[in-house]
């Protein structure tokens, strides 16, 4: 399932390539988990480009879904868990949900993983047990009754069929890659590999580029081989203010600033102007946040 490089052998891509691959109305999946490994540089590019009516497939996340929702980029969110963990709830997501202005397709981990697996395996559906929750009631499209050849054994749960969930574009963050698109993780990779297997086009931001020989010295770190990757964007601190496993910790004061801004009426606009609009490149973003502040996040 080789993918065609963006230009002759190299899979180096730019933020413009990412934006061009995401038309209005596209289904976009964002990787990482909670406060870690969110592809924030790619997400900020989508916000800047003013993409609209996106369907967001959010793996358990924090700032990435909250910023996309708060800036009005998202019409529908496939939600499994959106929260800032120790810092509290997601303000833009909550406001949008509580005003009824956001279509929420409710998932649990079973349903999300089953849908991604069905897409990754070219199956019409993937089975999950019916666990007696209200998910089939509010999300009948994705939690469908499964008629099995044999009646369920006594004491067995009914089964549900989850159809394939194949995002048009998958946005991920890894710590390093070579120019051919082999991506390495220096910590956990969460659901990223499954997302890449399920998606049609995959872009990965990385904190640093390394050469092929260096990459081959630690092949066990290459969780995303180039055949799963369409483009790699070199974006130092590309996950900031979320953390990048093995490189830098999440930025508590920056996230606190975001949360304060997003909770106040009109506050998010100011945040976006400061950290998204006026910082159109990864380098400009580093300048706005401040090199010393970023260096302090290294362990």
């Amino acid at each position, binding site marked *: 399932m080789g993918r065609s490089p963006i230009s002759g052998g190299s899979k180096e891509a730019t933020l413009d390539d990412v934006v061009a691959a995401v038309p209005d109305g596209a289904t976009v999946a964002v990787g990482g988990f*909670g406060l870690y490994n969110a592809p924030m540089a790619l997400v900020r590019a989508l916000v800047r480009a003013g993409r609209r009516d996106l369907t967001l497939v959010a793996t358990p996340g924090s700032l990435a879904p909250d910023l996309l929702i708060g800036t009005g980029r998202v019409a529908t969110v496939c939600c499994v868990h959106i929260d800032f963990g120790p810092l509290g709830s997601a303000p833009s997501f*909550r406001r949008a*949900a509580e005003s009824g202005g956001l279509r*929420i397709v*409710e998932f*649990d*981990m079973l349903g999300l993983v089953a849908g991604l697996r069905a897409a990754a395996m070219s199956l019409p559906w993937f089975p999950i047990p019916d666990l007696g929750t*209200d998910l089939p009631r509010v999300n009948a499209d994705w939690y469908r009754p499964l008629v099995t050849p044999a009646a369920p054994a006594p004491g*067995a749960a009914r089964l549900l069929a989850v159809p394939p969930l194949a995002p048009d574009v998958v946005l991920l963050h890894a710590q390093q890659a070579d120019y051919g698109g082999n991506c390495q993780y220096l910590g*956990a990779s969460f659901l990223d590999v499954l997302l890449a297997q399920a998606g049609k086009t995959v872009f990965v931001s990385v904190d640093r580029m390394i050469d092929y020989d260096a990459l081959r010295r630690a092949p066990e770190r290459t969780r995303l081989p180039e055949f799963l990757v369409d483009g790699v964007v070199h974006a130092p601190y590309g996950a900031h203010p979320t953390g990048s496993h093995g490189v830098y910790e999440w930025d508590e004061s920056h996230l606190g600033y975001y949360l304060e801004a997003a909770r106040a009426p009109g506050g998010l606009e100011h945040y976006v102007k400061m950290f998204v609009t006026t910082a159109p490149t990864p380098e400009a973003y580093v300048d706005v946040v401040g090199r010393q502040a970023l260096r302090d996040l290294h362990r």
Partner: protein
Amino acid sequence: VRGHSVEELLAVVLARHLRDGELGVVDPVSPVGAAACVLAQRRGRWVSWLAEPLGALDSRTDRVLDLADERLIGTATAMLDLGPTLDVGLWRRDFFDFAILDALQVDRFGNLNTVCVGPHATPARRGPGVLGVSAHAAHARRFMIALTRHDRETLVERVDFCAGVGHHRGGRTRETELGLPPGGPDLVVTPLGCFDFHPESRAMRVASLHDDVTLDAVRAATAFDLVVDRDPPPPTEPPSDEELRVLRLSVDAGGRLRRTG
């Protein structure tokens, strides 16, 4: 070491409730579950717990960290691959002996809501979402519910959205109507007391009350009728100096459980 936060009390009570040989999974938002597991280990109990987002087993840090924090990797006994973590952690029955879960709402039969208060389309309060609660409530051999609030908005007659099944509609309906394995919640800890479930009706029952809490106060803060076998109920055994010392020195040295509570 007099005086303790609500979250410290919850962690101590939950740690006492874990048994030798058990493998557990904990809620990713509330820090109480992971603290309870590590506290039980540090007090000599032979229990294991999984930081599910990472696949990290039995991480030994002296502070309570986010369950996706990379420092849990460097101190773990094992790092499980994602596939097996999902296959057995979500799909398989009885893989986890216990789960420690949090919720926006809990009802009379221990069903959990982490999604929304009010109608799903126009909620009065939106919660974070289901995550693994559905699977852990259904599949763990038993689960415990740790709440940092006890009021009529939290302990409700019936959850507005069922994200995780407890004892369903009471009795054995969890098994007979839904085909789920036996199990369900066996302990609820709140800032006011400890609660279990009546063996026949599976309705929530007062097990013990914390210091200076009256039955009237608990009833006033609960939106359904609690089963009361003993009036007055016994007091919750308060955290001992030793429990608090171990908790503060080698489980939660960063003081995360003291910051909120």
